[in-house]
């Protein structure tokens, strides 16, 4: 036994020396490299997996259709398990391959990478998550919370509630509860909600749920006790379905329950089924298989036997979000190529420029095969978000039904908050706000 142990240690050590000194090189020379941080295991796997598949499928789709102006995309997945230290390890491992950008796929990892990215010149694409303040490109040169942050999400939800009540002023005296994942992800919307509560005179009740969120009995008993007029759900992973089940078990009307866009996908309601009928959540992106793009992906990727996940999953909410992340990253590379040279491999810095000068207008959306499904996205030096448009979709017991109204975050509410938080960050980190010349470059 001892001898075997020795042999094993020796073998592992020898092998270790080999692998650590020669990092994996999977992509081919001359590819535009997309590192794909994912989590397909652990407590958040059910939600992370379709997201990861969407990211991967779009990359494969682009390669199947000739690349970005002829430049193929090299990619490699790295499993983080939603753990920050694993995420950092993945980042460091993939960094040496000159990544175009990185989507950490977790708020915690985003925080850890926000300091490293500027040093390594890797843009962070955090579509719909990450640091709300990083919308401010003047301070956060390398962060791109495209299409929305937790503040724009919270703002849209309050606007939606105002609309339901017949005007924001009708929220006065109402009680709104926030059931949130007790982590930076869940806490981000609180400052905005507090500001809105002050503006409209509603009472905000904060109910934290300890991660991962399998134990919510006490939380929902409190909901039952406080009887809020509306309850906002800010969960991720298993917390969402558990919340819905507890809402059912305590008889809280699902119609009064509204989720953020991370609480409104198929894995969240699948297991609750008909009992979740009436529940609504923000829809950051469209879903379904009707669009030109999805039909094309099914044909060129899945029919060719290249699909990352099962065929049924294509078009689901989180799959589409992953798809959009890759799509916008590809668009950024395309934009960069238009300036720095078509058909060339772009560096991280050039892609960053592309992300900052994105202009996906209606025409381009049509070309991308998503006509009418998303709103135009236009970023700038100061605005790294590009769009705050969002819709609501409701669960009818079997599918998510998109509602027609678009909401935009109220700039007069969001902007001062963003500015304040970004300035505080800049002071803490001793960063100077970028001036006009830096923007022009």
């Amino acid at each position: 036994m001892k001898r075997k142990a020795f042999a094993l240690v020796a073998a592992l050590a020898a092998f270790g020396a080999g692998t650590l000194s020669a990092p994996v090189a999977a992509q081919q020379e001359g590819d535009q490299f997309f590192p794909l941080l994912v989590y397909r295991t652990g407590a958040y796997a059910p939600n992370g997996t379709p997201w990861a598949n969407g990211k991967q499928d779009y990359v494969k789709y682009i390669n199947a259709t000739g690349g970005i102006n002829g430049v193929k995309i090299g990619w490699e997945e790295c499993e983080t398990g939603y753990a920050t230290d694993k995420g950092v390890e993945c980042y460091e491992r993939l960094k040496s391959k000159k990544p175009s950008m990185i989507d950490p796929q977790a708020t915690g990892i985003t925080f850890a990478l926000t300091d490293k990215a500027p040093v390594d010149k890797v843009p962070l694409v955090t579509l719909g998550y990450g640091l709300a303040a990083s919308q401010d490109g003047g301070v956060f040169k390398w962060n791109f919370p495209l299409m929305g942050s937790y503040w724009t999400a919270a703002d849209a939800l309050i606007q939606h509630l105002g609309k339901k009540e017949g005007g924001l002023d009708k929220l006065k005296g109402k009680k709104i509860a926030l059931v949130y994942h007790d982590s930076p992800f869940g806490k981000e919307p609180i400052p905005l909600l507090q500001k809105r509560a002050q503006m409209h005179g509603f009472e905000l009740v904060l109910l934290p749920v300890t991660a991962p969120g399998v134990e919510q009995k006490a939380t929902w008993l409190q909901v039952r006790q406080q009887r809020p007029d509306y309850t906002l759900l800010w969960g991720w992973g298993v917390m969402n379905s558990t919340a819905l089940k507890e809402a059912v078990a305590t008889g809280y009307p699902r119609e009064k329950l509204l989720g953020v866009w991370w609480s409104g996908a198929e894995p969240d309601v699948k297991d609750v089924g008909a009992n979740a009928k009436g529940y609504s959540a923000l829809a950051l992106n469209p879903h379904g298989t009707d669009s030109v793009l999805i039909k094309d992906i099914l044909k060129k990727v899945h029919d060719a036997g290249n699909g990352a996940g099962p065929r049924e999953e294509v078009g689901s909410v989180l799959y589409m979000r992953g798809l959009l992340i890759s799509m916008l990253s590809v668009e950024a590379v395309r934009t960069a190529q238009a300036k720095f040279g078509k058909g060339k491999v772009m560096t991280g810095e050039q892609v960053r420029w592309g992300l900052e000068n994105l202009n996906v207008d209606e025409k381009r959306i049509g070309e991308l095969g998503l006509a009418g499904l998303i709103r135009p996205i236009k970023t700038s030096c100061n605005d790294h978000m590009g769009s705050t448009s969002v819709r609501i979709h409701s669960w009818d017991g079997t599918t998510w039904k998109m509602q027609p109204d678009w909401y935009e975050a109220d700039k007069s509410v969001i902007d001062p908050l963003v500015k304040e938080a970004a300035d505080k960050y800049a002071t803490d980190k001793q960063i100077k706000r970028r001036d006009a010349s830096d923007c022009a470059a």
Partner: protein
Amino acid sequence: MLYRENGQFKTSYAADQQIFPIAQDRLAIGLLLLVAFVVMPMAGSEYLFRAVLIPFLILALAALGLNILVGYCGQISLGTGAFMAVGAYAAYNFMVRIDGMPLIGAMLLGGLTATVVGVLFGVPSLRIKGLYLAVATLAAQFFTDWAFLRISWFTNNSTSGSVSVAGLNVFGLPIESPVAKYLFCLTVVCVFALAAKNLTRTATGRQWMAIRDMDVAAAVIGIRPVYAKLTAFAVSSFIVGVAGVLWAFVHLGAWEPAAFSIDRSFQLLFMVIIGGLGSIMGAFFGAAFIVVLPIILDQVPHLLGIPLSTATTSHLVHMIFGALIVFFLIAEPHGLAKLWSIGKQKLRLWPFPH
């Protein structure tokens, strides 16, 4: 044949009480330090520093601290992550609240704060033993997890509850590049490893081990259990706290309480046990095993060109990792350090086995 102590006679007790009484060992450790301090910074890649060596060093330090408590004093703790967190958040607060607080100062103060909290949670050890104590230390884990999330003062009222530090320097030298970070961690680890070794080979260490091996007999020869147990908690938490500061400041840069979750506590306990209880070297072996092995296993299918999905790889890594732990526990319950010393013993006699 080369590894012999024949002819090396000790003429004084001081010489006999050296850490490495055998000349070849002194040479080996000298070479190791030379490689670590001089060769590595010149030859290592950035990935090696940031993703492998820095986390390895910091977690080895934390395991060293834990080993003092578990390996030397016999008090099991499942709350190590908590003491790392206390160190990290305390140091953060000293940094942001006191102008001009140097990194080293914040680090030591963070360690001291962890000491205070560690001693506080060590008090139950005076009455509770073994597994009961192990589970009781989970109270520390869950309480600090909660406190750093919930009490916004600790995070300097950060809206998200995540905090970050920047512009680290020691005596004016910036600790920004991977090499600088690596050297800083390496220095801290070497200093603490030496101090820990000194503690464990003198009266303090003997008191800890006496309490571990037979607490009643220890009391009968005049060792105060209160003192021995609480100093073990204090020293252990101090080192663990400093490791927490390094993990947060140097390795992560920005962090949230999840960085010091219960998984971290288990991970450190694994390191200590796989590496070898009651052995300074064991902490390093254990950290190497636990930090490096999953990274290697992760890359194996890729290297061999086997098209496994990320999820499958990750699950297989879990399985192999778990199986290896059980295997090593069966093969050598006293850990890799014991295996190492058996190996050395054999080498001493080689090539004549008797």
